[in-house]
């Protein structure tokens, strides 16, 4: 899409199919990571400390220029920088396939399932699906400037949510209500444990509108200023309120509509009379609304539905962005179609919108088995929707039935497992990773990894790398590929 770089970070859950397992999910996560880097040689492990929770060997960059690493015991995949929706969808699916294939290669398929969701029904644990959007440094990164973004984000869950059975218990956090800061538990928020079904997985865990941390007090907009690019030119909008999507359609529409709304804000065309009175509460109320009326109150005291808010953003985007490129027009067409269909029977959205697909499956099962919403089996089916084993997962069952529109192909995903997009900085990084795999081959590579941590032969980060005995190679512009310069730089290293 025009002037946008996208990235997705996905944390996966590991479900062990044993009553008394010998190993923890973290043990399996280590095995899977080691298989990817040491056996399949999909990338190069970090040899340096990236941070207090990322010691050497914790993860590394891949030949497709993305990353796989362990985060708080979870396997996590960060996509390479992508300049199109087609690329980001394929790159996201490439991460799923890399990890699932490693499980199959290791012979773990019957023991463990890779689950692409964001919650644990029993422990209330949550883990993220983070979106990244590169914007200009001139983006109005203020409470007032981002009010339209908040209104959009709070309401977009009606087509981006992945849905869940039940709800999370009260979160350990504090909420600002006007001038008062009070414990969230005092609001009774998240107390609807007996809730049958809600449309978002993450809504219960978002307790602030703006905040910089990601593990506590999660916010609608994360305010950490870490552009991973030239800070004089760029800012990275980092969002952690979204759900991991199974349908390619929802993934593309989530990123595409958000990208367009950021453009509307950058260009001063976003609707400015849609400021939501209590956005955090509205986020949860929309998600939990069993009638799916999705009403919110604005600062102006006006009550309006999430659908109407989305339609106002759509109208602005049609007026100001239509015709700028093929992907923009696809987003506008599908955005309009989804909003229109959301006004009718939710079953029209099966295959495109995850919460609708999941709800339909659960309703079919409930009907066939005569179950009420408290049946524990429904939580297990909820998980199974996100199982990345294509012979078992319920999403893949829908796909097999021809019910799910595709935006990419298996061949394209296969390619994205190994190759980076050719029109972003990822291309240059991919060259580097492939060069390093060739340079430190076999036992030599492992030996280097173990013995040279004090003076690592390479250090790779998103916006810079350094190969031993050479000057650092900065890559501050994600729109540049740097590929020729990287090749020249590496040739001089080899020489």
């Amino acid at each position, binding site marked *: 899409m025009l*002037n946008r770089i996208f990235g997705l970070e996905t944390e996966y859950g590991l479900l062990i199919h044993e009553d008394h397992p010998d190993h923890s999910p973290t043990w399996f996560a280590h095995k899977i990571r080691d298989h990817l880097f040491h056996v399949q040689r999909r990338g190069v492990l970090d040899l340096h400390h990236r941070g207090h929770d990322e010691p050497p060997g914790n993860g590394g960059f891949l030949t497709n220029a993305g990353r796989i690493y362990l985060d708080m015991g979870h396997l996590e995949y960060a996509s390479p920088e992508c300049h199109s929706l087609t690329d980001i969808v394929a790159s996201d699916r490439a991460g799923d396939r890399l990890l699932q294939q490693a499980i199959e290669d290791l012979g773990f398929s019957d023991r463990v399932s890779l689950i692409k969701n964001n919650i644990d029904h029993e422990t209330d644990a949550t883990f993220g699906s983070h979106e990244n959007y590169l914007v200009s440094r001139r983006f109005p990164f203020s409470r007032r400037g981002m009010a339209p973004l908040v209104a959009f984000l709070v309401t977009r869950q009606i087509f981006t949510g992945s849905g869940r059975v039940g709800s999370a218990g009260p979160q350990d956090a504090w909420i600002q209500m006007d001038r008062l800061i009070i414990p969230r538990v005092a609001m009774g928020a998240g107390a609807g444990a007996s809730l049958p079904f809600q449309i978002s997985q993450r809504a219960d865990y978002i307790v602030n509108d703006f905040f910089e941390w990601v593990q506590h007090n999660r916010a609608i907009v994360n305010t950490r200023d870490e552009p991973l690019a030239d800070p004089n030119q760029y800012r990275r909008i980092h969002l952690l309120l979204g759900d991991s999507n199974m349908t390619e359609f929802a993934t593309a529409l989530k990123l595409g509509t958000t990208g367009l709304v950021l453009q509307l804000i*950058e260009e001063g065309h976003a609707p400015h009379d849609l400021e939501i009175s209590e956005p955090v509460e509205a986020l949860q109320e929309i998600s939990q609304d069993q009638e799916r009326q999705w009403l919110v109150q604005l600062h102006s005291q006006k009550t309006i539905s999430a659908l109407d808010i989305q339609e106002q953003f759509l109208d602005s985007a049609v007026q100001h962005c239509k015709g700028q490129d093929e992907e923009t027009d696809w987003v506008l067409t599908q955005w309009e179609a989804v909003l229109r269909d959301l006004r009718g029977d939710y079953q029209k959205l099966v295959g495109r919108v995850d919460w609708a697909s999941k709800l339909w499956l659960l309703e079919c099962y409930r009907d066939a088995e005569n179950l009420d919403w408290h049946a524990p089996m429904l939580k297990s089916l909820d998980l199974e929707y996100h199982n990345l084993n294509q012979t078992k997962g319920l999403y893949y069952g829908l796909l097999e039935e021809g019910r799910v529109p595709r935006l990419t192909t298996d061949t394209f995903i296969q390619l994205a497992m190994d190759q980076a997009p*050719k*029109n972003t900085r990822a291309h240059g990084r991919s060259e580097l990773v492939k060069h390093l795999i060739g340079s430190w081959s076999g036992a030599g590579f492992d030996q280097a990894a173990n013995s040279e941590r004090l003076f690592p032969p390479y250090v790779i980060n998103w916006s810079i790398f350094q190969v031993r005995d050479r000057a650092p190679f900065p890559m501050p512009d994600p*729109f540049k590929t740097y590929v020729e310069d990287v090749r020249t730089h590496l040739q001089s290293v080899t020489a």
Partner: protein
Amino acid sequence: MKHSTMPERREGPVDPMPKSPRPEEGGGPRRPETGSPDKDSLMKRMRKVDPKQAERYRQRTGE
């Protein structure tokens, strides 16, 4: 107040990866088929699910 968009790209676009197929080629975005999918096949998948797996899914909070 009007805000500028991103700085101009300094490299022309290169064909990134092979394009996904167009709808008429059997791929690309399209509406799902109308009508009910084969519920029997989906019910078979659902009935194979371990009813206790949600209890077994002991995850830590991440991020």
